């Protein structure tokens, strides 16, 4: 049960993320625990009687720098929701509402110019940082410049469309965005100018990398030194080897409950260093309230039976897949790739992940309940259908024979954690059975993801996963499979398959353009593109995972945001 620490989109470089705003198409949350979807709960009234106490969170290890412009891990993005704010924010609520962007430090959603290149905001007055200084438009300008000065992981992919950004990417030290981010201290107005329309800009302004920091924040990674916050909590201390301690921000006053609600616990202690087993036991004994890491496989049954009331299972908009190197034998042959797709028993992969309650087989790149998703399975036993019914080993063997690649050596690169290693061993068995000499190459999770991206490492087939950055089909198809996202020889080449089809790229651009005016029609185009990509089979989707949050018995008001997962600040501990 891997929950990725790194939710990397394109770490650097030009990913053609000219996209479309997508907010529809998501279905209500399905909760195997039977609990009611928690949509909109944070937007309700603050319940004073539950205020107070210390929320105790646990994780096997810390997630590195606590700089919101640098950190790119799910572990801290979840915490940043209660500490930092941007001009915009995803609604702090459970269910579908969490995909909705609302004004945060901005008074309202931006006014967009008719050419789609200018976004005008007005900064709220009276919001203060935790050090007591008021947030000004100068802080906003400095924050955008800081994205480039600290070389934020998404600087080149999310914010490269701002006027002046290309120069900033080339020379961060002398970054000048005076034409891209125009501020007026007298009117508190901020205008963001783009070189081309970007309908997804609002999503990008609602993630932590676009958080507003004081203009005095360091122009390098702040690391473990906390930057003053605007949210309900500030950092009291941070030692990555021991703990992160958050306390109430004395200067916080709730300005928008959907964007940044007041938190319930007085303090949040996030401790590191114990094993996941030990952490789970602590939660069972109510010595702690929640564990970041997924529970070990052999504790799942116990949690699902003895502690069912404390387990919260939520589907994720993500997928696990096999990336096949389309520039390297044997997977430079489409029939070999198709053979893998039809040979893999997705129900076996689901079992190895933790069972049907924790994952669901998929054949498409776009996950269920995601914009553009249309159920379709080209690689299944029998005739192609809407859903996956089973593997067809005989057909796979035939395809391998037809491809002329039978007997070739294939290395499967996987992470060395329990679930990935088990899946790797299973895949080795499958590939061997269809005629390859397969071996598993387990690598430390810290390096596997960058290793498989770099084409110099010649990874033939690798097991990996992708979790959405924001709810748009382009965040999967365009990011993972466009020609521009393949950067040979780079550790930041998220198109791991090295797949490039100019025709499909052109169609994606058309879908992006259409999305500016007709999102529903664009989603239909994305669904068609998904099918076209799968016909080329640059990857083999395995399953879409679910997330299990295991909380102590004293925790109340659990809410699951589809965007940033459990809302930490909204938990009751008394």
């Amino acid at each position, binding site marked *: 049960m891997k929950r990725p620490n790194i939710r990397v989109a394109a770490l650097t470089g030009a990913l053609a993320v000219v996209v479309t705003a997508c907010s529809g198409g998501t279905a209500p949350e399905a909760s*195997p*625990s039977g609990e009611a979807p928690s949509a909109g709960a944070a937007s309700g009234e603050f319940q004073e009687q539950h205020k107070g106490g210390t929320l105790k969170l646990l994780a096997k290890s810390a997630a590195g720098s606590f700089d919101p412009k640098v950190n790119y891990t799910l572990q801290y993005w979840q915490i940043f929701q209660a500490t930092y704010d941007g001009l915009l924010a995803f609604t702090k609520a459970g269910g579908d509402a969490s995909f909705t962007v609302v004004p945060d430090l901005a008074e309202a959603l931006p006014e967009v110019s008719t050419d789609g290149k200018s976004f005008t905001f007005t900064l709220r007055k009276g919001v203060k940082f935790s050090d007591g200084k008021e947030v000004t438009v100068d802080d906003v300008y400095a924050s955008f410049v800081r994205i480039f000065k600290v070389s934020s992981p998404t600087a080149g992919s999310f914010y490269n469309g701002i006027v002046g950004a290309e120069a900033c990417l080339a020379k961060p030290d002398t970054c000048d965005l005076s034409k891209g981010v125009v501020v007026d201290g007298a009117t508190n107005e901020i205008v963001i100018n783009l070189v081309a329309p970007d309908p997804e800009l609002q999503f990008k302004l609602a993630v932590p990398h676009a958080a507003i920091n004081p203009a005095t924040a360091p122009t390098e990674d702040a690391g473990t030194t906390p930057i003053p916050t605007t949210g309900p909590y500030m950092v009291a201390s941070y030692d990555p080897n021991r703990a992160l301690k958050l306390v109430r921000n004395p200067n916080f006053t709730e300005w928008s409950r959907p964007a940044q609600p007041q938190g319930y616990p007085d303090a949040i202690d996030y401790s590191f260093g114990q094993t996941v087993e030990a952490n789970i036991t602590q939660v069972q004994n109510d010595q702690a309230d929640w564990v970041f890491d997924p529970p*070990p*496989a*052999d*504790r*799942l*049954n*116990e*949690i*699902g*039976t*003895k502690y*069912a009331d404390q*387990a919260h*299972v939520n589907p994720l908009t993500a997928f696990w897949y096999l990336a096949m190197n389309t520039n390297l034998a044997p997977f430079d042959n489409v029939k070999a790739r198709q053979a893998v797709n039809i040979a893999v*028993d997705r*129900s*076996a992969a689901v*079992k*190895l992940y*933790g*069972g*049907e*309650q*924790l994952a669901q087989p998929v054949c498409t790149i776009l996950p269920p309940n995601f914009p553009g998703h249309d159920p379709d399975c080209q690689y299944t036993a029998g005739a192609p259908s809407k859903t996956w019914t089973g593997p067809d080993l005989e057909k796979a063997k035939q395809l391998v024979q037809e491809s002329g690649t039978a007997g070739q050596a294939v290395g499967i690169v996987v992470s*060395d954690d*329990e679930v990935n*290693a*088990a899946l*790797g*061993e*299973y895949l*080795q*068995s*499958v590939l*061997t*059975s269809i005629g390859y000499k397969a*071996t*598993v190459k*387990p690598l430390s999770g810290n390096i596997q993801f960058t290793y498989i991206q770099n084409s110099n490492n010649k990874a033939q087939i690798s097991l990996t996963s992708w979790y959405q950055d924001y709810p748009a089909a382009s965040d999967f198809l365009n990011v993972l499979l466009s020609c521009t996202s393949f950067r040979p020889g780079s550790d930041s080449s998220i198109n791991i398959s090295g797949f490039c089809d100019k025709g499909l790229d052109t169609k994606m651009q058309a879908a992006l353009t259409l999305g500016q005016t007709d999102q529903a029609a664009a989603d239909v185009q994305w669904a068609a593109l998904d099918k076209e990509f799968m016909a080329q089979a640059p990857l083999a989707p395995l399953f879409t995972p679910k997330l*299990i949050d295991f909380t102590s018995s004293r925790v109340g008001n659990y809410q699951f945001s589809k965007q940033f997962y459990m809302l930490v600040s909204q938990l009751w501990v008394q």
Partner: protein
Amino acid sequence: MVTAPVAGSVQSLDRADGRRSGASPGPWRTSLGQLARNRGAMLALLLFLLVLVACLAAPLYADRVAGTDPFTSNVNGTTVVDGREVPVLEASSTGLGLGVTPIGPTWDPSHYLLGADNQGRDVMARLLYGGRNSLLIGLSAAMLCCLLATVIGVLAGYFGGVVDAVLSRVLDVVWAFPVYLLAISLSVVLLTSGGAAIGPVRVEAGSLWLPVLIIAVIYVPYVARPLRGQVLALKEKEFIAAAVGVGASDLSIMRRDVLPNVLPTVVVFLPLMTALAMLTESALSFLSVGVQPPQASWGTIINDGLGLLYTRPAVTIAPGLAIALTAAALNVFGDGVRDALDPRARLRGAG
């Protein structure tokens, strides 16, 4: 260190005595007799042989008894328990239905005697196959280690001077590293670089000979140093001086006079090093840098079982027990061999 009888003189006396009376059994036969009378050592040998035979019979068990392929995943497979067909990996059907648990021990040899691992493979079949690999690596590494150590120890001790200085420093360098740290480092490097090449001989990353080579090399100083010391002492003996005096070549002296005298020490080292090599292999495989999947060893099976410690401890306990029993048997037998070849060591221990 074993201080065996001075072979040059003893062997010649033995031959002379044999001619004279025909009754003297000789030092080797005496030692064997002594070993045979050591009940503990004989029981340990019997236990080791039982394990060895069981492991050698692994294909027989997998094919004829269990009817399973222990190297192929069987995630969606089924088996029969109490006349009912059940999935090998069973999804939880209680509570929230979270998790999938492999079938536990059925105590039915033809249907997952010790249960299944997380890939749905028969643990008993894998245990036997794993034992073959563990024992093969243990025995091979011990023999290779002793061979290398004997060559280095004899050369260093006999020639002394520059040869000794160079070889001893090389041994010191190897010795300077904590043994497991060195083994893990070498394994990681060689596994990620695709194997090792020694002249025309290439050992692939997934080959069983890679852990054999690594384990043999890291333990060489532990055997070579005592042997070198023994050779240094032997060099001062009269029979060596006599051999030099009659014009015997260095090679001849090493082969005919030195080597026979250090062999008892090597023989004592063999079972002990086998146990040590087996334990090291298990540790490396447990850390995923020893035997590579789909091959199995007792260490890899323990690793497989780690994630099932709560629900299916048998997957871990069975290979753990096998390692403990085999290592204990080899150590007890090794002690017996030492006592037989060097009665003074036993007296020293008793004193």
